[in-house]
């Protein structure tokens, strides 16, 4: 089959657009979650949409699954190749096709880097708001496929709130455009369904993103606390006071010390937690809100306070937060990043549960959160070379996710399900919902060849997890809820 695929592809793409040897393919064996690795049958790096269409048709005819890949920074093994499949890299679609400053939009190809958009439109005093920490590397196509967020999503929304139109290809190579040139499109909101679809519903080829004018001023406040719970409740107080900061981030002591050693951002290394609060808007609004936030922080247990107004100072304070993952990465040979989201009021409870589990498993944790919207990123520190430690880490992570579900949260706020959290999907959803997801998938991709096995588990898999015996796909006592 591999030979048939390769010879068919040679008729479409050639030279460095087709990788087939182990050596060539090795760099693509995993995404940002390197615990999962696999080599595909071949890797295609097409340059034109006609090539992509022809490749998809070929795979359709040969019944070969296709995994799309942007920049490969995903953290849930969504772009993990399949051993019996083709890896389709969109990296060469890296052109910004059109910038429309009047309508504040840009039309871009999927392989354009997130940050490159803001850089290209800066001359119009505009920017693209969603800013994942991986923004220097990750692609906008990957952002759409994951519905990525960033530190400024509290005020400006996720990817789904900041895109207007998409063109994607079906497995049959048909081009479909969803959304509109205005603020909405005709028919069902398939733009919303495509966003966060993890490469299972179509190959995204063209994206119109919304741009925003840069705010007049921005100010960052850094507050230290000697108690994590106090920092957590300060978040509720700020939002309860009617202020929606542009960003509101929290880090615990382990994360603070790691980030400080790495980025020298001037963080108080003795604090149990810090809050980073960015306020932006008109000069007058920011002045009023900053005063109010400082007052709230001071009267609610902040032990230190720093303010940064000029861009360089602000950048320094953010540098620590944005480098938190690599910084924590220096504390141990490996780290495992979780992505649960919870209603904010349960923060203290969930944090102490994580602490408890950390002791139980004997594995340290550094906590970094998008505190404003309750999105937690506990980073579990481990050593993959120690036998059994990866398995222990995964078991620990799974328990954190179960804790998030138990308090009414979700297993993933922005990193996606991929392969990584596929088992926890069986806890978050019941059989009827999973069946509905499969029906949606079938409506978009009747062949089932787009990124199969990711994002939505089969009922069979869930049943096996529950230790049930499944015969011919039938569940015992199908009338009972068990998922």
């Amino acid at each position, binding site marked *: 089959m591999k030979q048939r695929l390769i010879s068919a592809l040679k008729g479409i793409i050639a030279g460095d657009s087709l990788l087939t040897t182990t050596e060539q393919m090795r760099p693509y064996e995993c995404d940002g979650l390197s615990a999962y690795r696999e080599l595909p049958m071949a890797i295609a790096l097409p340059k034109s949409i006609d090539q992509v269409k022809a490749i998809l048709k070929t795979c359709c005819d040969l019944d070969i699954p296709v995994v799309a890949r942007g920049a490969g920074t995903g953290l849930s093994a969504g772009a993990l190749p399949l051993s019996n499949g083709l890896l389709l890299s969109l990296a060469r679609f890296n052109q910004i096709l059109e910038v429309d400053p*009047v309508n504040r939009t840009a039309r871009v190809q999927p392989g354009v880097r997130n940050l490159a958009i803001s850089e290209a439109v800066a001359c119009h005093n505009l920017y693209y708001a969603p800013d994942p920490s991986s923004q220097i590397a990750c692609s906008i196509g990957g952002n759409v496929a994951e519905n990525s967020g960033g530190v400024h999503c509290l005020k400006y929304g996720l990817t789904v709130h900041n895109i207007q139109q998409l063109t994607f290809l079906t497995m049959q190579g048909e081009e479909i455009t969803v959304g509109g040139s*205005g603020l909405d499109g005709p028919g069902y909101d398939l733009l919303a369904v495509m966003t966060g679809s993890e490469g299972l519903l179509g190959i995204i080829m063209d994206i119109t993103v919304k741009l925003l004018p840069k705010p007049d001023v921005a100010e960052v406040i850094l507050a230290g606390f000697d108690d994590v719970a106090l920092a957590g409740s300060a978040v509720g107080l700020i939002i309860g006071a009617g202020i929606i900061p542009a960003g509101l981030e929290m880090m615990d002591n382990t994360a603070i010390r790691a980030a400080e050693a790495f980025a020298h951002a001037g963080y108080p290394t003795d604090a149990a937690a810090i809050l980073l609060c960015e306020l932006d808007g008109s000069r007058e609004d920011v002045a009023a809100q900053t005063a109010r936030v400082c007052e709230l922080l001071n009267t609610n247990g902040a032990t230190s306070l720093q303010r940064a107004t000029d861009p360089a100072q602000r950048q320094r304070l953010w540098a620590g937060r944005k480098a938190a993952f690599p910084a924590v990465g220096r504390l141990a040979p490996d780290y495992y990043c979780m992505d649960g989201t919870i209603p904010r009021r349960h923060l203290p409870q969930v944090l102490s549960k994580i602490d408890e589990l950390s002791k139980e498993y004997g594995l340290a944790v550094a906590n970094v959160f998008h505190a404003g919207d309750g999105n937690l990123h506990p980073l579990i520190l481990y050593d993959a070379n120690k036998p059994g430690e990866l398995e222990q880490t995964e078991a620990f992570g799974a328990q954190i996710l179960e804790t998030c579900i138990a308090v009414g949260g979700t297993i993933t706020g922005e990193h*996606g399900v991929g392969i990584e959290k596929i088992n926890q999907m069986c806890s978050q959803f*019941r059989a009827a919902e999973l069946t509905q997801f499969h029906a949606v998938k079938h409506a978009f991709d009747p062949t089932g060849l787009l990124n199969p096995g990711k994002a939505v588990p089969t009922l069979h898999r869930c049943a096996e997890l529950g230790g049930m015996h499944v015969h011919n796909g039938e569940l015992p006592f199908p009338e009972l809820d068990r998922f």
Partner: protein
Amino acid sequence: MSTDIELSEQVTLAHTQAQPLRIVGGNSKSFLGNATDGDSLDVRTHTGIISYEPSELVITAKAGTPLREIEAALHEHSQWLAFEPPHFGADATLGGTIAAGLSGPARPWSGSARDFVLGVRCINGKGEILKFGGQVMKNVAGYDVSRLMVGAMGTLGVLLDISLKVLPTVEQSLTLQFELAENDLSAWLRQWSSTALPLTAACHHQDTLRLRLSGTPSSLDAAHALLGADARVSDDQFWNDLREHRLSFFESEKPLWRVSLQGGAQPLPLHGDCLYDWGGAQRWLLSDERATVVRAAVEACGGHATLFRQADLDAPVFHPLPTGLRDLQRRVKQAFDPAGILNPRRFSPDW
């Protein structure tokens, strides 16, 4: 028996008998969409706020809850539905608001109905009760079915409970008025497009441009000084009337079109009276032109047109789709409602 189980049993029965259902809320938006028939499925008994956490910025309520009840609860905590949903009648329900997916004047700056939906519980066309999304701001587990339900006019599922993100109310608003010819509108937009202004509404009609600004009093003064203006009004009456279609513009016997297209686009080459809302991205057009003519002109600008109030015009209410997209949408409909019993034809003449 709880109302959701009752409703799901009715849908299950209808599914097995292939009996079409007409989902009924407060009937405030019954004018919108193609005519549908079927046994009525009344969701008004499924009512009440389930939870409201002001500090979490989230409210969850049953679909039959009157919209005004929700707005009153939010108002007590100085919060609101920032997409400013039109009511179109005193009996508007939350479910109808989300199913119709309409948003008011603030939409280009604060987001649309679908932007604020965090999760839903619904009944699909097989009578199964399903839960998607949740009460948290960020959630990417599974496909985003909650947002898919917004604007689907009940054809993909009967909404039971809806969780919405809410926001603090704005501190103060003011309206600036300018004299500006229709042909000069796009030049005006170009001039200000890259400036961060505290805009929350922008409307143009009959040579008058009105802007609503919201923020602290001093930021409003600063924006007023920057923009200048021919007049300054402090009350919100105009915007409420625009949202609810109570302006005299809407008192017409002519078909009313809702046109969605790029804000900066030029005036459409169509006869009739045009009111620009959403900074031009939503236009209300009163016109006697044939439906095909209106739609061709709008499509040429990359937009789409909804026949919002028919006045007996014989044309599909929602913009016809290109073949590939139409077939995909039909398959999506079938994925949720295989027997085609939920509000048949209300959304698309084909199903």
